[in-house]
Protein backbone atom coordinates (compact mmCIF):
# COMPACT_ATOMS: atom_id res chain seq x y z
CA UNK A 1 0.00 0.00 0.00
CA UNK A 2 2.88 2.34 0.75
CA UNK A 3 4.02 2.67 -2.91
CA UNK A 4 0.54 4.01 -3.78
CA UNK A 5 0.76 6.50 -0.90
CA UNK A 6 4.23 7.54 -2.05
CA UNK A 7 3.05 8.17 -5.61
CA UNK A 8 0.03 10.16 -4.40
CA UNK A 9 2.10 12.33 -2.01
CA UNK A 10 4.87 12.98 -4.53
CA UNK A 11 2.35 13.75 -7.28
CA UNK A 12 0.54 16.19 -5.01
CA UNK A 13 3.62 18.10 -3.83
CA UNK A 14 5.82 17.97 -6.92
CA UNK A 15 2.75 18.37 -9.15
CA UNK A 16 1.65 21.43 -7.17
CA UNK A 17 5.09 22.99 -7.51
CA UNK A 18 5.23 22.12 -11.22
CA UNK A 19 1.77 23.60 -11.80
CA UNK A 20 2.88 26.86 -10.15
CA UNK A 21 6.00 27.01 -12.35
CA UNK A 22 3.92 26.36 -15.48
CA UNK A 23 1.38 29.05 -14.58
CA UNK A 24 4.16 31.54 -13.84
CA UNK A 25 5.86 30.87 -17.17
CA UNK A 26 2.58 31.33 -19.03
CA UNK A 27 1.93 34.56 -17.12
CA UNK A 28 5.37 35.89 -17.96
CA UNK A 29 4.84 35.07 -21.64
CA UNK A 30 1.57 37.03 -21.54
CA UNK A 31 3.30 39.97 -19.89
CA UNK A 32 6.15 39.91 -22.42
CA UNK A 33 3.61 39.84 -25.26
CA UNK A 34 1.74 42.80 -23.76
CA UNK A 35 4.93 44.80 -23.36
CA UNK A 36 6.00 44.10 -26.95
CA UNK A 37 2.72 45.41 -28.39
Amino acid at each position, binding site marked *: *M*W*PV*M*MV*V*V*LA*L*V*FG*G*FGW*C*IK*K*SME*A*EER*RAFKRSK
Partner: protein
Amino acid sequence: MSSNKEQWGSRWGLILSAIGMAVGTGNIWRFPRISSANGGGSFVFVYIGAFILWAIPLLMAEAVWGKATRRGVVGAFKEFLGEKYTWMGGLVGWISYAIACYYAVVMGYCVRYFVFAITGVIKPGVDTEALWNSFINSSSQMMTFHIVSMIIATVIILRGVNKGLELANKIMIPALFVMLIVLVIRAITLPGAVKGLEFLFTPKLEYILKGKTWLEAFTQAAWSTGAGWALLLTYYVYAKEDEDITLNCTMTCFADTTAALLAALAVIPTIFALSPDPMKAVGSGNNGLAFIHLTKLFSEMPGGMLAAMIFFLALIFAALSSLLSMLELATRVLIDAGWERAKAALAVGVVTTILGLPSSYRAYILENQDWVWGVGLLLSGMFFWYGAIKKGVDKLYEQYIKPSSDIDAPWLWKLIYFFPIWFFLIVGWWMYQAITWYPGEWWKPFPLDKYTYTVGTMLFQWAIAFVVIYLLNDVLNRWVKPVKR
Protein backbone atom coordinates in the same frame (compact mmCIF):
# COMPACT_ATOMS: atom_id res chain seq x y z
CA MET B 1 14.08 61.06 1.68
CA SER B 2 14.77 57.40 1.09
CA SER B 3 14.65 56.17 -2.46
CA ASN B 4 13.41 52.97 -4.06
CA LYS B 5 15.65 52.59 -7.08
CA GLU B 6 16.40 48.93 -6.50
CA GLN B 7 14.16 46.35 -8.18
CA TRP B 8 14.30 42.63 -8.98
CA GLY B 9 15.69 42.08 -12.46
CA SER B 10 13.06 39.46 -13.23
CA ARG B 11 10.10 37.67 -11.71
CA TRP B 12 12.25 34.56 -11.26
CA GLY B 13 14.73 36.61 -9.24
CA LEU B 14 11.95 37.45 -6.78
CA ILE B 15 10.52 33.92 -6.76
CA LEU B 16 13.88 32.22 -6.22
CA SER B 17 14.71 34.70 -3.45
CA ALA B 18 11.31 34.07 -1.84
CA ILE B 19 11.93 30.32 -2.05
CA GLY B 20 15.40 30.87 -0.57
CA MET B 21 13.82 32.86 2.24
CA ALA B 22 11.44 29.98 3.03
CA VAL B 23 13.74 26.98 2.54
CA GLY B 24 16.05 26.81 5.53
CA THR B 25 17.83 24.24 7.62
CA GLY B 26 14.47 23.27 9.18
CA ASN B 27 13.37 21.80 5.85
CA ILE B 28 16.36 19.48 5.86
CA TRP B 29 16.73 18.44 9.48
CA ARG B 30 13.32 19.15 11.07
CA PHE B 31 10.73 18.16 8.45
CA PRO B 32 12.01 14.57 8.01
CA ARG B 33 11.86 14.03 11.79
CA ILE B 34 8.48 15.66 12.35
CA SER B 35 6.82 14.09 9.32
CA SER B 36 8.06 10.59 10.14
CA ALA B 37 6.91 10.92 13.76
CA ASN B 38 3.43 12.09 12.73
CA GLY B 39 2.24 9.70 10.09
CA GLY B 40 4.77 10.24 7.25
CA GLY B 41 2.81 10.56 4.01
CA SER B 42 -0.39 11.27 5.93
CA PHE B 43 1.41 14.19 7.61
CA VAL B 44 2.08 15.72 4.19
CA PHE B 45 -1.67 16.00 3.50
CA VAL B 46 -2.16 17.76 6.82
CA TYR B 47 0.89 19.93 6.19
CA ILE B 48 -0.51 21.11 2.85
CA GLY B 49 -3.72 22.03 4.67
CA ALA B 50 -1.69 23.92 7.25
CA PHE B 51 0.26 25.96 4.75
CA ILE B 52 -2.90 26.85 2.86
CA LEU B 53 -4.65 27.97 6.05
CA TRP B 54 -1.73 29.64 7.81
CA ALA B 55 1.13 30.48 5.45
CA ILE B 56 -0.37 31.55 2.12
CA PRO B 57 -2.71 34.25 3.53
CA LEU B 58 0.06 35.63 5.74
CA LEU B 59 2.61 35.68 2.93
CA MET B 60 0.03 37.46 0.76
CA ALA B 61 -0.48 40.05 3.51
CA GLU B 62 3.27 40.62 3.67
CA ALA B 63 3.46 41.04 -0.09
CA VAL B 64 0.61 43.58 0.01
CA TRP B 65 2.35 45.59 2.78
CA GLY B 66 5.66 45.65 0.90
CA LYS B 67 4.24 46.40 -2.53
CA ALA B 68 1.81 49.03 -1.30
CA THR B 69 4.20 50.98 0.91
CA ARG B 70 7.61 50.27 -0.69
CA ARG B 71 9.13 50.33 2.77
CA GLY B 72 10.72 47.86 5.13
CA VAL B 73 8.72 46.42 8.00
CA VAL B 74 8.81 49.46 10.33
CA GLY B 75 7.87 52.00 7.68
CA ALA B 76 5.31 49.64 6.16
CA PHE B 77 3.31 49.42 9.40
CA LYS B 78 3.63 53.19 9.86
CA GLU B 79 2.32 53.99 6.40
CA PHE B 80 -0.24 51.21 6.21
CA LEU B 81 -1.84 51.44 9.64
CA GLY B 82 -0.84 54.89 10.85
CA GLU B 83 1.75 56.32 13.23
CA LYS B 84 0.10 54.78 16.29
CA TYR B 85 1.04 51.34 14.99
CA THR B 86 4.66 51.79 13.96
CA TRP B 87 5.74 49.81 17.05
CA MET B 88 4.05 46.74 15.54
CA GLY B 89 6.48 46.87 12.64
CA GLY B 90 9.31 47.42 15.11
CA LEU B 91 8.34 44.35 17.11
CA VAL B 92 7.85 42.12 14.04
CA GLY B 93 11.21 43.30 12.70
CA TRP B 94 12.96 42.77 16.03
CA ILE B 95 11.72 39.17 16.35
CA SER B 96 13.00 38.27 12.87
CA TYR B 97 16.26 40.12 13.48
CA ALA B 98 16.78 38.39 16.86
CA ILE B 99 16.46 35.09 15.00
CA ALA B 100 19.07 36.24 12.46
CA CYS B 101 21.58 36.79 15.27
CA TYR B 102 21.61 33.12 16.25
CA TYR B 103 20.75 31.74 12.81
CA ALA B 104 24.16 32.95 11.60
CA VAL B 105 25.66 30.73 14.31
CA VAL B 106 23.61 27.78 13.00
CA MET B 107 24.95 28.47 9.51
CA GLY B 108 28.40 28.41 11.11
CA TYR B 109 27.74 24.80 12.22
CA CYS B 110 27.01 23.87 8.60
CA VAL B 111 30.13 25.65 7.32
CA ARG B 112 32.24 23.84 9.97
CA TYR B 113 30.87 20.45 8.95
CA PHE B 114 31.35 21.20 5.27
CA VAL B 115 34.99 21.93 6.08
CA PHE B 116 35.14 18.67 8.06
CA ALA B 117 33.77 16.88 4.97
CA ILE B 118 36.18 18.38 2.43
CA THR B 119 39.22 17.92 4.67
CA GLY B 120 38.49 14.21 5.13
CA VAL B 121 37.64 14.35 8.84
CA ILE B 122 34.37 12.49 8.18
CA LYS B 123 35.96 9.10 7.52
CA PRO B 124 35.35 5.51 8.66
CA GLY B 125 35.83 5.08 12.40
CA VAL B 126 35.32 8.73 13.34
CA ASP B 127 33.50 9.24 16.66
CA THR B 128 30.89 11.73 15.46
CA GLU B 129 29.49 12.34 18.93
CA ALA B 130 32.94 13.31 20.23
CA LEU B 131 33.50 15.42 17.10
CA TRP B 132 30.23 17.29 17.70
CA ASN B 133 30.91 17.79 21.41
CA SER B 134 34.43 19.06 20.77
CA PHE B 135 33.05 21.58 18.25
CA ILE B 136 30.06 22.74 20.26
CA ASN B 137 32.22 23.24 23.38
CA SER B 138 34.93 25.13 21.50
CA SER B 139 34.00 28.81 21.71
CA SER B 140 36.83 29.77 19.39
CA GLN B 141 35.65 27.44 16.62
CA MET B 142 32.01 28.42 17.09
CA MET B 143 32.85 32.13 16.95
CA THR B 144 35.17 31.71 13.97
CA PHE B 145 32.54 29.97 11.86
CA HIS B 146 29.84 32.38 12.98
CA ILE B 147 32.03 35.28 11.82
CA VAL B 148 32.82 33.50 8.52
CA SER B 149 29.08 33.04 7.90
CA MET B 150 28.36 36.68 8.65
CA ILE B 151 31.14 37.86 6.33
CA ILE B 152 29.72 35.80 3.44
CA ALA B 153 26.18 37.08 4.08
CA THR B 154 27.25 40.72 4.55
CA VAL B 155 29.23 40.76 1.29
CA ILE B 156 26.12 39.57 -0.58
CA ILE B 157 23.86 42.16 1.09
CA LEU B 158 26.44 44.87 0.33
CA ARG B 159 26.17 44.07 -3.38
CA GLY B 160 22.50 45.03 -3.38
CA VAL B 161 19.31 43.48 -4.68
CA ASN B 162 20.35 42.53 -8.24
CA LYS B 163 24.04 41.76 -7.93
CA GLY B 164 23.75 40.38 -4.42
CA LEU B 165 20.46 38.81 -3.34
CA GLU B 166 19.10 37.97 -6.79
CA LEU B 167 22.34 36.58 -8.18
CA ALA B 168 23.10 34.56 -5.04
CA ASN B 169 19.62 33.03 -4.92
CA LYS B 170 19.59 32.32 -8.66
CA ILE B 171 22.71 30.22 -8.11
CA MET B 172 21.97 28.74 -4.70
CA ILE B 173 18.33 27.68 -4.99
CA PRO B 174 18.53 25.64 -8.23
CA ALA B 175 21.80 24.16 -6.92
CA LEU B 176 20.11 23.29 -3.62
CA PHE B 177 17.32 21.39 -5.40
CA VAL B 178 19.83 19.58 -7.62
CA MET B 179 21.90 18.60 -4.56
CA LEU B 180 18.82 17.32 -2.76
CA ILE B 181 17.88 15.22 -5.82
CA VAL B 182 21.42 13.78 -5.94
CA LEU B 183 21.17 12.90 -2.24
CA VAL B 184 17.76 11.28 -2.79
CA ILE B 185 19.17 9.13 -5.63
CA ARG B 186 22.12 8.07 -3.44
CA ALA B 187 19.83 7.34 -0.50
CA ILE B 188 17.24 5.24 -2.30
CA THR B 189 19.87 3.19 -4.10
CA LEU B 190 21.40 2.04 -0.80
CA PRO B 191 20.64 -1.61 0.06
CA GLY B 192 17.79 -1.59 2.59
CA ALA B 193 16.64 1.93 1.77
CA VAL B 194 13.22 0.62 0.87
CA LYS B 195 12.58 0.11 4.61
CA GLY B 196 12.86 3.85 5.04
CA LEU B 197 10.45 4.54 2.19
CA GLU B 198 8.06 2.01 3.66
CA PHE B 199 8.31 3.67 7.08
CA LEU B 200 7.77 7.11 5.54
CA PHE B 201 4.85 6.25 3.26
CA THR B 202 2.92 3.44 4.93
CA PRO B 203 -0.58 4.95 5.16
CA LYS B 204 -1.32 5.91 8.74
CA LEU B 205 -4.52 7.75 8.03
CA GLU B 206 -5.50 7.75 11.70
CA TYR B 207 -2.85 10.46 12.17
CA ILE B 208 -4.93 12.83 10.03
CA LEU B 209 -7.60 12.81 12.74
CA LYS B 210 -5.14 13.48 15.58
CA GLY B 211 -5.00 17.03 16.95
CA LYS B 212 -1.26 16.74 17.60
CA THR B 213 -0.57 16.05 13.91
CA TRP B 214 -2.36 19.26 12.96
CA LEU B 215 -0.57 21.26 15.64
CA GLU B 216 2.81 19.93 14.53
CA ALA B 217 1.90 20.66 10.89
CA PHE B 218 0.83 24.23 11.65
CA THR B 219 3.95 24.86 13.72
CA GLN B 220 6.18 23.44 10.98
CA ALA B 221 4.32 25.49 8.32
CA ALA B 222 4.71 28.68 10.37
CA TRP B 223 8.43 28.17 10.91
CA SER B 224 9.30 26.68 7.55
CA THR B 225 7.59 29.09 5.19
CA GLY B 226 8.70 32.23 7.04
CA ALA B 227 5.13 33.54 6.91
CA GLY B 228 4.59 36.51 9.21
CA TRP B 229 8.30 37.24 9.68
CA ALA B 230 8.15 40.26 7.31
CA LEU B 231 10.84 38.73 5.11
CA LEU B 232 8.61 38.49 2.04
CA LEU B 233 7.38 42.00 2.86
CA THR B 234 10.97 43.19 2.51
CA TYR B 235 11.42 41.35 -0.79
CA TYR B 236 8.19 42.82 -2.20
CA VAL B 237 9.54 46.33 -1.57
CA TYR B 238 11.63 45.63 -4.70
CA ALA B 239 8.82 44.01 -6.72
CA LYS B 240 7.62 45.43 -10.02
CA GLU B 241 4.30 47.31 -10.01
CA ASP B 242 2.51 44.52 -11.92
CA GLU B 243 4.06 41.70 -9.88
CA ASP B 244 1.68 38.87 -9.00
CA ILE B 245 1.04 38.02 -5.34
CA THR B 246 -1.27 34.96 -5.13
CA LEU B 247 0.65 32.63 -7.44
CA ASN B 248 4.07 33.66 -6.10
CA CYS B 249 3.01 32.98 -2.50
CA THR B 250 1.46 29.63 -3.43
CA MET B 251 4.59 28.65 -5.34
CA THR B 252 6.83 29.63 -2.40
CA CYS B 253 4.88 27.24 -0.15
CA PHE B 254 4.91 24.38 -2.67
CA ALA B 255 8.64 24.87 -3.31
CA ASP B 256 9.29 24.87 0.42
CA THR B 257 7.35 21.61 0.80
CA THR B 258 9.12 20.09 -2.21
CA ALA B 259 12.51 20.83 -0.62
CA ALA B 260 11.32 19.38 2.69
CA LEU B 261 9.97 16.23 1.05
CA LEU B 262 13.19 15.75 -0.94
CA ALA B 263 15.12 16.08 2.32
CA ALA B 264 12.88 13.45 3.92
CA LEU B 265 13.46 11.16 0.92
CA ALA B 266 17.21 11.60 1.35
CA VAL B 267 17.45 11.40 5.14
CA ILE B 268 14.98 8.69 6.20
CA PRO B 269 16.03 5.96 3.68
CA THR B 270 19.71 6.64 4.49
CA ILE B 271 19.02 6.16 8.20
CA PHE B 272 16.98 2.99 7.69
CA ALA B 273 19.56 1.53 5.31
CA LEU B 274 22.58 2.13 7.50
CA SER B 275 21.70 2.90 11.10
CA PRO B 276 21.61 0.04 13.63
CA ASP B 277 18.86 1.92 15.50
CA PRO B 278 16.88 4.05 12.99
CA MET B 279 14.24 5.16 15.51
CA LYS B 280 16.92 6.50 17.88
CA ALA B 281 18.49 8.48 15.04
CA VAL B 282 15.13 9.90 13.89
CA GLY B 283 14.26 10.91 17.44
CA SER B 284 17.60 12.50 18.25
CA GLY B 285 16.77 16.17 17.61
CA ASN B 286 17.91 18.46 14.80
CA ASN B 287 21.58 18.68 15.71
CA GLY B 288 21.81 15.05 16.76
CA LEU B 289 20.29 13.89 13.48
CA ALA B 290 22.45 16.00 11.16
CA PHE B 291 25.74 16.30 12.99
CA ILE B 292 25.98 13.00 14.86
CA HIS B 293 23.85 10.29 13.25
CA LEU B 294 23.89 11.29 9.57
CA THR B 295 27.55 12.28 9.79
CA LYS B 296 28.29 8.82 11.21
CA LEU B 297 26.40 7.18 8.34
CA PHE B 298 28.21 9.34 5.77
CA SER B 299 31.53 8.25 7.28
CA GLU B 300 30.66 4.60 6.70
CA MET B 301 28.70 4.51 3.43
CA PRO B 302 30.24 4.04 -0.03
CA GLY B 303 30.76 7.50 -1.56
CA GLY B 304 30.01 8.95 1.85
CA MET B 305 32.61 11.72 1.69
CA LEU B 306 30.99 13.13 -1.44
CA ALA B 307 27.51 12.69 0.05
CA ALA B 308 28.62 14.53 3.22
CA MET B 309 30.05 17.40 1.15
CA ILE B 310 26.81 17.70 -0.84
CA PHE B 311 24.64 17.42 2.28
CA PHE B 312 26.49 20.10 4.23
CA LEU B 313 26.76 22.38 1.20
CA ALA B 314 22.99 22.03 0.76
CA LEU B 315 22.57 22.96 4.42
CA ILE B 316 24.81 26.01 3.92
CA PHE B 317 22.78 27.18 0.91
CA ALA B 318 19.52 26.64 2.79
CA ALA B 319 20.80 28.55 5.82
CA LEU B 320 22.44 31.34 3.84
CA SER B 321 19.46 32.02 1.60
CA SER B 322 17.28 32.42 4.70
CA LEU B 323 19.87 34.44 6.62
CA LEU B 324 20.15 36.85 3.69
CA SER B 325 16.44 37.65 3.88
CA MET B 326 16.69 38.39 7.62
CA LEU B 327 19.71 40.66 7.15
CA GLU B 328 18.02 42.40 4.22
CA LEU B 329 15.02 43.07 6.48
CA ALA B 330 17.25 44.97 8.91
CA THR B 331 19.21 46.67 6.11
CA ARG B 332 16.00 47.88 4.48
CA VAL B 333 14.84 49.43 7.76
CA LEU B 334 18.08 51.45 7.89
CA ILE B 335 17.74 52.44 4.23
CA ASP B 336 14.24 53.73 5.06
CA ALA B 337 15.88 55.87 7.71
CA GLY B 338 17.95 57.54 4.99
CA TRP B 339 21.10 55.41 5.15
CA GLU B 340 23.01 54.40 2.02
CA ARG B 341 22.92 50.62 1.34
CA ALA B 342 26.67 50.18 1.88
CA LYS B 343 26.59 51.87 5.26
CA ALA B 344 23.37 50.09 6.27
CA ALA B 345 24.59 46.64 5.18
CA LEU B 346 27.92 47.07 6.97
CA ALA B 347 26.21 48.26 10.15
CA VAL B 348 23.80 45.32 10.09
CA GLY B 349 26.67 42.92 9.39
CA VAL B 350 28.81 44.19 12.26
CA VAL B 351 25.98 44.48 14.80
CA THR B 352 24.53 41.05 13.93
CA THR B 353 27.98 39.49 14.25
CA ILE B 354 28.39 41.05 17.70
CA LEU B 355 24.88 40.15 18.88
CA GLY B 356 25.40 36.57 17.68
CA LEU B 357 28.64 36.13 19.64
CA PRO B 358 26.91 35.07 22.91
CA SER B 359 25.06 32.32 20.99
CA SER B 360 28.32 31.20 19.43
CA TYR B 361 30.12 31.40 22.78
CA ARG B 362 27.74 29.05 24.55
CA ALA B 363 25.26 26.70 22.83
CA TYR B 364 22.74 27.06 25.68
CA ILE B 365 22.39 30.79 24.91
CA LEU B 366 21.51 29.89 21.31
CA GLU B 367 18.95 27.37 22.53
CA ASN B 368 17.46 29.97 24.88
CA GLN B 369 17.14 32.49 22.07
CA ASP B 370 15.65 29.87 19.74
CA TRP B 371 13.07 29.04 22.43
CA VAL B 372 12.14 32.70 23.00
CA TRP B 373 12.07 34.10 19.47
CA GLY B 374 11.27 30.88 17.62
CA VAL B 375 7.91 30.82 19.37
CA GLY B 376 7.73 34.62 19.39
CA LEU B 377 7.56 34.82 15.64
CA LEU B 378 4.15 33.19 15.77
CA LEU B 379 3.02 36.48 17.35
CA SER B 380 4.10 38.44 14.29
CA GLY B 381 1.34 36.91 12.18
CA MET B 382 -1.29 38.44 14.46
CA PHE B 383 -0.12 41.94 13.57
CA PHE B 384 -0.58 41.25 9.88
CA TRP B 385 -4.02 39.80 10.59
CA TYR B 386 -4.94 42.90 12.59
CA GLY B 387 -3.76 45.16 9.78
CA ALA B 388 -5.71 43.22 7.15
CA ILE B 389 -8.91 43.43 9.21
CA LYS B 390 -8.37 47.12 9.97
CA LYS B 391 -7.78 48.05 6.33
CA GLY B 392 -10.50 45.73 5.02
CA VAL B 393 -9.74 42.28 3.62
CA ASP B 394 -11.93 42.74 0.52
CA LYS B 395 -10.62 46.23 -0.13
CA LEU B 396 -7.01 45.07 0.00
CA TYR B 397 -7.79 42.25 -2.43
CA GLU B 398 -9.45 44.56 -4.95
CA GLN B 399 -6.76 47.23 -4.66
CA TYR B 400 -3.50 45.32 -4.40
CA ILE B 401 -3.94 41.64 -5.26
CA LYS B 402 -6.56 41.26 -7.98
CA PRO B 403 -5.20 43.77 -10.57
CA SER B 404 -1.96 41.83 -11.12
CA SER B 405 -3.00 38.34 -10.08
CA ASP B 406 -2.06 35.45 -12.34
CA ILE B 407 -4.56 33.10 -10.70
CA ASP B 408 -8.00 34.10 -9.54
CA ALA B 409 -8.27 32.64 -6.04
CA PRO B 410 -9.60 35.29 -3.64
CA TRP B 411 -10.51 32.53 -1.17
CA LEU B 412 -6.81 31.93 -0.49
CA TRP B 413 -6.49 35.53 0.71
CA LYS B 414 -9.79 35.51 2.59
CA LEU B 415 -8.57 32.64 4.74
CA ILE B 416 -6.78 35.33 6.73
CA TYR B 417 -10.09 35.93 8.56
CA PHE B 418 -9.56 32.61 10.38
CA PHE B 419 -5.95 33.28 11.37
CA PRO B 420 -6.62 33.97 15.08
CA ILE B 421 -8.15 30.49 15.46
CA TRP B 422 -4.94 28.78 14.32
CA PHE B 423 -2.82 31.26 16.26
CA PHE B 424 -4.50 30.66 19.62
CA LEU B 425 -4.60 26.90 19.06
CA ILE B 426 -0.88 26.69 18.31
CA VAL B 427 0.41 29.21 20.85
CA GLY B 428 -2.00 27.81 23.47
CA TRP B 429 -0.74 24.30 22.76
CA TRP B 430 2.87 25.41 23.06
CA MET B 431 2.19 27.21 26.33
CA TYR B 432 0.24 24.26 27.72
CA GLN B 433 3.00 21.83 26.80
CA ALA B 434 5.69 24.03 28.31
CA ILE B 435 3.69 24.54 31.51
CA THR B 436 3.22 20.79 31.97
CA TRP B 437 6.98 20.26 31.61
CA TYR B 438 7.69 22.41 34.69
CA PRO B 439 4.53 22.60 36.80
CA GLY B 440 4.96 25.08 39.65
CA GLU B 441 8.01 26.66 38.01
CA TRP B 442 6.74 27.53 34.54
CA TRP B 443 6.30 31.22 35.40
CA LYS B 444 9.93 31.79 36.47
CA PRO B 445 11.48 34.48 34.25
CA PHE B 446 15.02 33.12 34.32
CA PRO B 447 16.12 29.71 33.01
CA LEU B 448 15.91 26.97 35.69
CA ASP B 449 19.32 25.81 34.54
CA LYS B 450 21.41 26.21 31.39
CA TYR B 451 19.20 24.08 29.17
CA THR B 452 15.86 24.36 30.99
CA TYR B 453 13.67 27.19 29.75
CA THR B 454 10.25 28.08 31.04
CA VAL B 455 7.25 29.88 29.59
CA GLY B 456 8.22 32.65 32.03
CA THR B 457 11.59 33.09 30.27
CA MET B 458 9.80 33.50 26.99
CA LEU B 459 7.15 35.91 28.29
CA PHE B 460 9.79 37.92 30.17
CA GLN B 461 11.89 38.54 27.06
CA TRP B 462 8.82 39.22 24.91
CA ALA B 463 7.63 41.75 27.50
CA ILE B 464 10.99 43.56 27.50
CA ALA B 465 10.98 43.77 23.69
CA PHE B 466 7.36 44.94 23.63
CA VAL B 467 7.79 47.65 26.30
CA VAL B 468 11.02 49.02 24.81
CA ILE B 469 9.71 49.10 21.22
CA TYR B 470 6.30 50.46 22.24
CA LEU B 471 7.96 53.30 24.15
CA LEU B 472 10.12 54.02 21.10
CA ASN B 473 7.08 54.41 18.82
CA ASP B 474 7.54 58.17 18.35
CA VAL B 475 11.27 57.77 17.81
CA LEU B 476 10.59 55.15 15.11
CA ASN B 477 8.04 57.47 13.47
CA ARG B 478 10.58 60.29 13.23
CA TRP B 479 13.29 57.90 12.15
CA VAL B 480 11.53 56.48 9.07
CA LYS B 481 11.89 59.02 6.27
CA PRO B 482 9.16 59.73 3.70
CA VAL B 483 9.67 57.56 0.65
CA LYS B 484 10.60 59.01 -2.73
CA ARG B 485 8.63 57.09 -5.33
